[in-house]
């Protein structure tokens, strides 16, 4: 108990801050911050097992997040029958062609030794394959995109409950990570960082521009929800009764019946959106707790010890007979899969998929700030980092406004400097993130909750 005091203290402060937001701003804001904190926590756990456990740099978090989001779309949206009938066969045929191409390349790689000839054969297979695929898929894609472009214009998905997409998102992201890992994991640390960053940009470019699959920048809106809709809640009796029970004393003060009714209505409307957010919080909390238990178990297992050994001294671990390449690939896939879950959760919560909103600043670098600030190698630290940094990211604007008003209180409201500063309040969050990161790296390089390994 005693040695975990700082963990408990840090989490209590964090929860206290969120509750303060609830009291002073509104419970709605507090809960939406809390939900996004939970999602960020999942992302940081993914990044943490790559960086903290194994020392792998993955700057491609944005790409996996987007793939998770794509999974949410592909799972939950109802299939567009018309699009399937006009272009489905072409797309499926191209898919088989791509699979055939990959198999052919694998066959060539296995059958022939490394030589110039082999390189040329592979190049020919790839080039002719791409031309063939384009030739076949083009009419299909055009036909699909012409099907009611204002509303659909894409193939749609499987029409399953969106919750399944959390698993599928993990599979998608893990699959991509497997390919990237096979290609790039041999690179040195900083090369790996750059390569993953650029590959994630390629993923985003594809998601943005392949309209037949994702609707691209036209966005997919109105996704299914795992939680009830506010409008439905406001009509159901048990919910109204619940709200009435909660606010019994407050409502009893009002004597007039019609006034009481309208006050109740107001409370029901507010309550419904809070209730929906609470539903999401519950779902996300379950995910975070499951992941936390699993990652903690992994950290203290023989496997976790081996990962740390590999991280701290690759050559020695190699000499001890540990397959470094394989373990790196494994942890790369696992971490990315967790980020994929977070991506699907994010789209589930928003109810919309906007490929244009995936930017490296928000989805890669911010997550890294969370990991570093929280404490790499420590799961509790990573989660705390997700909470603290996201909280600051959202509350930076009010804080900056307060500070500006305080420091420029001597100036008139119309002074150009004051006006300029108040206009640029949204950018102070970058400043706070940067300075926060620099200070933590300088004075507490292991993060707020540093890695602590005890031999049990």
């Amino acid at each position, binding site marked *: 108990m005693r040695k975990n005091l700082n963990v408990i203290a840090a989490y209590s402060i964090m929860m206290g801050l969120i509750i303060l937001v609830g009291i002073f701003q509104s419970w709605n804001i507090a809960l939406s911050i809390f939900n996004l904190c939970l999602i960020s926590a999942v992302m940081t756990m993914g990044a943490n097992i790559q960086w903290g456990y194994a020392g792998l740099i993955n700057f491609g978090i944005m790409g996996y997040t987007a793939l998770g989001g794509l999974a949410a779309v592909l799972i939950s949206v109802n299939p567009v029958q018309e699009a399937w009938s006009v272009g489905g066969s072409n797309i499926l045929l191209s898919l088989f062609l791509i699979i055939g191409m990959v198999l052919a390349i694998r066959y060539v790689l296995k059958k022939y030794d490394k030589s110039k000839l082999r390189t040329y054969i592979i190049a020919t297979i790839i080039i002719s394959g791409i031309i063939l695929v384009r030739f076949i898929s083009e009419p299909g894609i055009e036909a699909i995109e012409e099907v009611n472009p204002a509303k659909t214009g894409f193939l749609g998905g499987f029409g399953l409950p969106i919750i399944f997409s959390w698993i599928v998102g993990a599979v998608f992201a893990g699959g991509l990570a497997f390919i990237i890992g096979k*290609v790039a994991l041999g690179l040195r640390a900083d*090369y790996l*960082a750059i390569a993953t960053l650029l590959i994630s940009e*390629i993923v985003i470019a594809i998601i943005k521009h392949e309209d037949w699959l994702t609707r691209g920048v036209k966005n997919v809106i109105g996704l299914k929800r795992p939680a009830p809709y506010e409008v439905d809640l406001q009509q159901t009796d048990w919910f109204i009764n619940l709200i009435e029970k909660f606010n019994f004393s407050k409502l009893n003060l009002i004597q007039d019946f019609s006034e009481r009714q309208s006050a109740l209505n107001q409370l029901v409307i507010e309550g419904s959106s809070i209730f929906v957010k609470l539903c999401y919080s519950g779902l996300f909390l379950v995910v975070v707790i499951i992941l936390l238990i699993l990652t903690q178990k992994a950290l203290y297992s023989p496997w976790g010890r081996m990962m740390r050994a590999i991280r701290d001294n690759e050559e020695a671990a190699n000499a001890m007979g540990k397959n470094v390449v394989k373990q790196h690939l494994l942890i790369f896939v696992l971490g990315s899969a967790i980020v994929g879950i977070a991506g699907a959760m994010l789209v589930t919560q928003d109810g919309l998929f906007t490929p244009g909103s995936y930017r490296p600043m928000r989805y890669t670098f911010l997550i890294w700030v969370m990991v570093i600030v929280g404490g790499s190698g420590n799961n509790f630290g990573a989660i705390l980092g997700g909470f603290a940094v996201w909280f600051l990211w959202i509350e930076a604007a009010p804080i900056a406004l307060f500070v500006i008003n305080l420091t420029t209180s001597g100036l008139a409201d119309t002074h150009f400097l004051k006006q300029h500063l108040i206009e640029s309040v949204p950018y102070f969050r970058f*400043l706070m993130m940067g300075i926060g990161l620099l200070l933590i790296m300088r004075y507490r390089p292991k993060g707020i909750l540093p890695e602590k390994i005890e031999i049990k």
Partner: protein
Amino acid sequence: MDFINAIILLLNYIFIPALTYGSQLALGAIFVTLIYGILRFANFATGDMMSFGTMAAILFTWYFQSLGVSLGVLPTALIAIPFAIIFMIFYMLLIDKFVFKYYRNQKSPPVQLAMVSIGVMFVTQAVVRIIIGPSDRRFFDGEKFIIKAGEFKEITGLNEGLAIKSTQILTILVTLILVSTLFWFLNKTKTGKSMKAYSDNEDLALLSGIDPKKIVMITWIIAGILATIGGTLYGLDKSFKPFTYFNNMLPIFAAAIVGGIGNPFGAFLGGYVIAFSEIFLTYAYKKFFMYVLPESMEPDGLVQLLSTDYKFAVSFSILVIVLLYRPSGIFKGKVL
């Protein structure tokens, strides 16, 4: 005649734009490569440092414009650049003193320095946006075109026009002068040679009496010059927007690595490799084939290898291929 038309077409839409864009990338790539070679870390703040320098140039341009100073046909930004460079170098040395120096003295691993540079990236981005705002700014003044497409058609009697913007020529010329001065400096002067030695083998360089503080300072100064000029040229040619500059970091990294990181000449050529392949692969060749081929063989489609949406993706794919087959870059060779 058709053949000449086809060539003019390629010149106008591929060659000159790619040469301009390549020059802008090349300056950035040399910046990245210098920092990597001498200070030994991947600088993720590259794009934002360039936007900081450009911001300084814009502020000075506005100041000169308000004074009524102008260069006639040339953009006023040219007078602003030297002042912006001084401002920029001051900022760079400040960052180095308060941020990077500590980790250098600690002999931190490159990864940690790269993480620190992310912190610098956040701060610089915030500073630029707070001072000048996130919106699109055009600060070009003076004569826009050297040859206009219409005039060219009239003079030569060809179907295809050739338009050359003055910013394009300016970019290419300034880049050539700057880069050749830089190579002269690195290869011929004593300081340049000691920089090379330092990048090659730090301990040996220290033993032979090279002052590391001086080397680091000169590196930041050169980096400041490159970043400011590269950024300003890009801003003159296109427009200044902090977000675009941040994104430009990616093709710049690609150029530096393709050219073999730590090798300035490689980075210089890498910029052009990236620029040309981006434009070659995303250009629609329909019109070109209409000129070259007989009428019966005219293509139906646009004859575009990749849609322009994938412009960035092209350079990154090249990078990935290079990393796979030649991790040390196309133009291998000695460090710095």
